[in-house]
């Protein structure tokens, strides 16, 4: 099997056929911070799971009835904060 080369300057350095190393979610962080990071106020949170339904990245987790955010995959879109009916999610920049 051939090793994947990613940096090349000349034609002669190219790998045989178009191939690239990729950043896939199991092995790499795929998070962005578009509008900051969502922080859940567990005092206010009713665990209604609306954020879990609306999250386009599947970054909202349900752990023992509690709602948490997986920051490895969260893109910071802010949809969860927008949809939360009790205002328990705040977008923060730190």
């Amino acid at each position: 099997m051939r090793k994947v080369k990613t940096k090349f300057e000349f034609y002669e350095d190219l790998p045989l056929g178009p191939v690239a190393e990729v950043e896939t979610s199991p092995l790499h962080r795929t998070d962005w911070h578009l509008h900051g990071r969502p922080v859940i106020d567990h005092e206010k949170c009713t665990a209604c799971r609306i954020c879990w339904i609306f999250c386009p990245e599947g970054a909202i987790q349900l752990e023992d009835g509690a709602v948490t955010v997986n920051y490895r995959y969260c893109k910071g879109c802010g949809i969860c904060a927008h949809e939360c009916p009790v205002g328990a999610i705040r977008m923060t920049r730190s």
Partner: protein
Amino acid sequence: MPGGGHPHDEELAMTTKRLLTGNGAAALAVKLCQPKVICAYPITPQTPIVEYLAKFVADGELKAEYIPIEGEHSAMAACIAASLAGARTYTATSSQGLAYMQEGLFYAAGVRAPILMTVVNRSLAAPWTILAGEDDSISQRDTGWIQFYCESVQEVLDTHIQAYRVAEDWEVRLPVMVCLDGFNLSHCYEYVEVPRQRDVDEFLPPFRPMYRLDVEDPKLIPPFEPPEWFMAFKLQQEEAMENAKRRIREVDEQFSERFGRGYGLVEPFLCEDADAVIVAMGTIAGTAREAVARMRRKRRKVGLVRIRVFRPFPREELKHALRGVKAVGVIDRNYSFGCGGAVFTELRSALYGDRAAPIVLGFVAGLGGQDVTVHHVMEMAEKVLGAAETGEVERETEWIGIRRRKPCQSLNSP
């Protein structure tokens, strides 16, 4: 022993003889090549290939993953993924099915997936037909696939075995189409020598992928390529095509040494002293062979060049075979509207600039299963001989077998 044979005869025999159709030979050859993944959607006249292979897998005669699928577009997608995952991969189609998978054809060649596909040639609608015509695979000639066109059932079997060797060669790494005329070859029976499994195994080493798709070591094939590098990868494909010319010849020679049959990229027949030569592909070449042999008996100096490999186009071999010939008549079972037959235009382009280049005449025949007889070919050859004598061409391209009110307009069968 029944038949009085020596007890070891069967073991010593290099081959067994079987009565097979073109489709049967294709399926049996594929079985001998032991692909790990087969994914194809049935379509007339390719259907029996899919049925045979599905049965081989169901009966446990072939250890492969057989994927029934909803259409040809998905079939090609599955084949590309399987090939990149490290499996020797096979598919087959015809006509509308090939057109439907076209997008995937570019992908397969672009990611250098050495998939083998049998194309049982059938003209494309409309009007609706299920019969022979090479317009389906010819219209895919720019997708980056190697293309073989077979003349006999034996050649169908042999070419499939050779094709995997060529496709998987490190200097080539390109997908291959093995094309055979629908019904004329796919459904016609011939006695065929079938090689032993162990001889095929020795001839065709196990498939080794370039980069294996692996969740533990992820790769993106193919990534988005910016303009800076896109053309460079296309040039790689062109270089692989050029390499394929040499490797096809070498693989054919090695096959010939082991199994006693070889075909080359082009096959000249009685061309040495010929004034006029017919150039044809597929089963029409078989008919032309008979026509040329009959005309030779009447001392007409005609010959035949059969093109077996259309992609890569064997320019040098054709130039060599046609050296000293005064006029050439190309029979195309395909057509590019507003231009001409594919073999005609490409051959003439290859000969351009050669001072001693022969006159080239184009004949369009056999589309949609139209019968091309020995008499048709003899009439065409007489026209070519006429052009060789006078040095003049009456019409650049002629459509054969069109029944017209004015018979002088066409070459109707007598």
